[in-house]
């Protein structure tokens, strides 16, 4: 029986997952109610406690239903597990261990979330077009802004690593898959519950504490806060498992000859980000877990009247959430350097320094968190050390610029859409970087903290660097993923509209900060009216630029010209195989014999097919890894 045709049956696993979630939820809630009755804990029904206790079995039920049981857990009990489907659109809607399928699942999911949160940004700007606020009540505005924030943070965490990392890390190191393919699929299928929680929270009052969820606000606001907390814990689990998988994959699954100093820089950047994801994510999960316990279990971690301390939350939260910005931006750096080298047709300049820069940032990232708390009223003796450590981050970051500028220097640039995006990253991050210095410096931070200066700064670093790099990389790898070429002129239109509108939107926000506009406000003083109206109009143009992107993607997917295996004449391994790559990635075992960036060095190749008869040892490597 052929089940490869796409149809209603393709959604079978999702229905089974939903059924599993419903059963699990009922069991959990029933248990909670029984427990409350048995121990006489006041009323039998407590919404938040029952929901939290119901959520855990619901999540397990969802995972089992979607395929963890049929593709994986069944064999622990002596059963026969199902294999993956390898053809048809249906495979994207089920448990599938092919890293390329998972990469596409992540990429499409997070692009959809990006567009959704982008729409929320459009609503935010429409509201802020007038000083008293044009469309929302204050409470609604806070909830919309909070949802925009956390969804975009999730996109920033997972779109590049989960999407492009999953698809291209194994290809670029010459592996046939990730080290733990089933764990990989599990990481992805933890994501839909996160999206469902964040969206359904709005039906339960939403949450109005931003993406930072500082208590005591987050211990006293609407039920939606609990949905947010569970979403963070679930997403954190996904992120940690993903980080672990990347570290093991990169450490153990490299093709013969792929020494550490021959790894493409994008793979290094994923390695660096995975170190942070694995080490720090649990801090955020722990922080919101304590908030949840304060709400439903009567603990008082953050309640000052019973010995708790609200500042304690801020420290634990920023333990993760500062390093997290490097989870966002390091893969953006990696993509940028990758594209710059291939389109300047030059070796990646000072490769070892660039790797040192990435790993240097990882190292320092754990020692800088309290710079988010200079105005919090924390012990003043902490200010000087965190000023010093934070400014020190400029040194490894400078090495990234060294590599980027050295790479384009004296090159004849091939100004295709991916290259334009990569060059824009260098420009945008220059602005994001130098304004970071003002925020690291305590004196200037005292005035700028919590103002639109900060809003402008982090949009410059996250959109300006990571999201620009993401879109550049989508154009760069579109032919490899789909086997079709994108439309170059539409790509250029998208780039120039996005680049100009982005700068016109966010540069004036620095001035809004000087003039007394603080963050997260549903209304502002009249002196800021003209500036905000201008920003809103520019933001609408920025939003519209993504319509060009969507048009290009759909048109090219269905009617694009056929792409060759290597349309960019680039030298990394993913271009040595067909577009799209076959199931096991390579028809041959690649053997790496040199750097991926040997442009201008005669015929020095990066890799060759293994001589006929040589054994394929990827299976051995997988076993070693496991």
């Amino acid at each position, binding site marked *: 029986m052929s089940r490869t045709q796409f149809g209603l049956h393709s959604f079978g696993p999702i229905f089974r997952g939903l059924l599993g979630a419903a059963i699990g939820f009922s069991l959990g809630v029933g248990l909670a109610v029984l427990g409350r009755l048995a121990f006489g804990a006041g009323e039998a029904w407590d919404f938040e406690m029952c929901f939290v206790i119901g959520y855990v079995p619901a999540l397990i039920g969802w995972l089992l239903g979607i395929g963890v049981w049929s593709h994986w857990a069944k064999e622990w009990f002596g059963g026969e597990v199902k294999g993956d489907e390898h053809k048809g659109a249906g495979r994207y809607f089920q448990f599938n261990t092919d890293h390329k399928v998972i990469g596409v699942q992540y990429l499409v999911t997070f692009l959809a979330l990006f567009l959704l949160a982008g729409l929320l940004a459009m609503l935010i700007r429409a509201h802020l077009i007038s000083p008293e606020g044009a469309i929302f009540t204050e409470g609604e505005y806070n909830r919309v802004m909070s949802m925009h924030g956390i969804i975009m943070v999730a996109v920033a965490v997972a779109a590049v690593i989960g999407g492009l990392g999953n698809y291209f890390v194994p290809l670029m190191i010459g592996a046939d898959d990730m080290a733990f393919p089933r764990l990989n699929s599990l990481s992805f299928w933890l994501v839909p519950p996160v999206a469902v929680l964040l969206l359904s929270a709005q039906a339960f009052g939403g949450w109005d504490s931003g993406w930072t969820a500082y208590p005591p606000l987050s211990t006293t606001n609407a039920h939606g806060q609990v949905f947010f907390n569970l979403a963070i814990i679930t997403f954190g689990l996904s992120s940690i498992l993903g980080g672990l998988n990347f570290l093991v994959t990169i450490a153990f699954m490299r093709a013969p000859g792929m020494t550490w100093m021959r790894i493409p820089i994008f793979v290094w950047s994923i390695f660096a980000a995975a170190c942070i994801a694995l080490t720090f994510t649990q801090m955020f999960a722990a922080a919101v877990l304590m908030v949840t316990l304060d709400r439903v279990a009567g603990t008082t971690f953050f309640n000052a009247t019973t010995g708790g301390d609200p500042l304690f939350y801020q420290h634990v939260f920023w333990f993760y959430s500062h390093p997290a910005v490097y989870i966002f931006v390091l893969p953006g750096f990696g993509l940028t350097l990758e594209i710059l080298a291939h389109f300047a047709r030059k070796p990646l300049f000072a490769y070892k320094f660039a790797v040192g820069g990435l790993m240097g940032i990882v190292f320092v990232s754990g020692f800088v968190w309290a710079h988010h708390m200079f105005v919090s009223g924390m012990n003043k003796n902490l200010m000087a050390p965190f000023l010093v450590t934070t400014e020190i981050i400029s040194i490894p970051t400078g090495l990234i610029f060294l590599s980027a500028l050295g790479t384009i220097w004296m*090159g004849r640039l*091939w100004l295709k859409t991916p290259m334009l995006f990569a060059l824009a990253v260098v420009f945008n991050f220059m602005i994001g970087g130098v304004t970071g210095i003002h925020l690291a410096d305590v*004196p200037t931070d005292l005035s700028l903290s919590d103002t639109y200066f900060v809003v402008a700064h982090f949009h410059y670093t996250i959109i300006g660097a990571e999201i620009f790099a993401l879109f550049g990389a989508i154009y760069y790898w579109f032919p490899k993923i789909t086997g079709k070429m994108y439309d170059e002129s539409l790509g250029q239109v998208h780039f120039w509209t996005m680049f100009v509108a982005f700068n016109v939107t966010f540069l004036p926000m620095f001035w809004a900060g000087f003039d007394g506009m603080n963050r997260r406000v549903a209304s502002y003083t009249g002196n800021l009216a003209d500036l905000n109206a201008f920003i809103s109009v520019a933001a609408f143009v920025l939003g519209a630029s993504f319509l060009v992107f969507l048009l290009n993607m759909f048109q090219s997917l269905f009617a694009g010209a056929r792409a060759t295996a290597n349309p960019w004449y680039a030298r990394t391994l993913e271009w040595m195989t067909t577009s799209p790559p076959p199931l096991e990635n390579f028809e041959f075992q690649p053997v790496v014999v040199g750097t991926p960036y040997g442009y201008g060095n005669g015929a020095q190749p990066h890799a060759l097919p293994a001589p006929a008869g040589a054994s394929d040892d990827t299976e051995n490597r997988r076993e070693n890894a496991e």
Partner: protein
Amino acid sequence: VEIALAVAVLLGIPLLTAAIALITERPARAPKPRTVSQDSTSKATWITLGIWTVLTVAGVGAVLAVDFYSTIASDRGEDIAHAFTFLTALAVPVAAMVVAVLVYSMIRRSGGDDLMPPEDGPFYEGKGPFPKAWLGVTAGLTLLIIIYPGLWTLNDVIRTHDDPDVVINVEALQWTWLISYPDQGIENQFELVVPVDREVTFLISSRDVAHSFWVPAFLTKIDAIPGRTSELSLIATETGDFSENAAYRIQCAELCGISHASMRIPVRVVTQSEFDDWVASKTAAAAGKED
């Protein structure tokens, strides 16, 4: 002092760079497969240096000419605005260098066509002394900004007054501010009145969730956290009034729930005699009420 410091560092950096470059210089490597002629490299260097110089001069000029903060009405604010200008002026040459290389690379003859990339560029792998010199320069600049304005200005902006002229209690609650003057016996005002040129200390607390005490005109801010009292000291330097300048307001700057954005009350900075009159009228009114 700061000018001497800046000059010393700015002179020191090229010297340091040269020293590092000399120390780490290696003998020329084996002949390279592709190189660009010495002429075109030096032409590119001169053009880029030209763009860099123009951008730097224009940028530093603009930074020194612009008043970033429209209102600066406290001693801390003056230090802060000064630090901001210094950091921004120092950032200009760095940013200008990035832009110069980008602009030169874009206007330089690009290559390739629809289907074929341009021929490979020169084989620069960055194995010479340049990256180490770069590391030295960036480390030097970072050290500079850590020392000045960072640590140098730090204590000036966070120190508290030992014996302030006026102590003002600020209590934050969802969603307003209560202002009290314990020494004057004035309680729970919805307006902050501050005498100019006097040492003022604010003792800031919160009744419910985290808030942040921020008067944009004073530039500095500090959070109000339940269970703690935050202390903020300053001297107001310019008289002013919310009705004329929106920077004279207490604005909550930490997300605190529904009406966070509109959690603001007016601020007036007045002369000492006006302040005395205001205190007298308030205490008289309070006495009248008690009778």
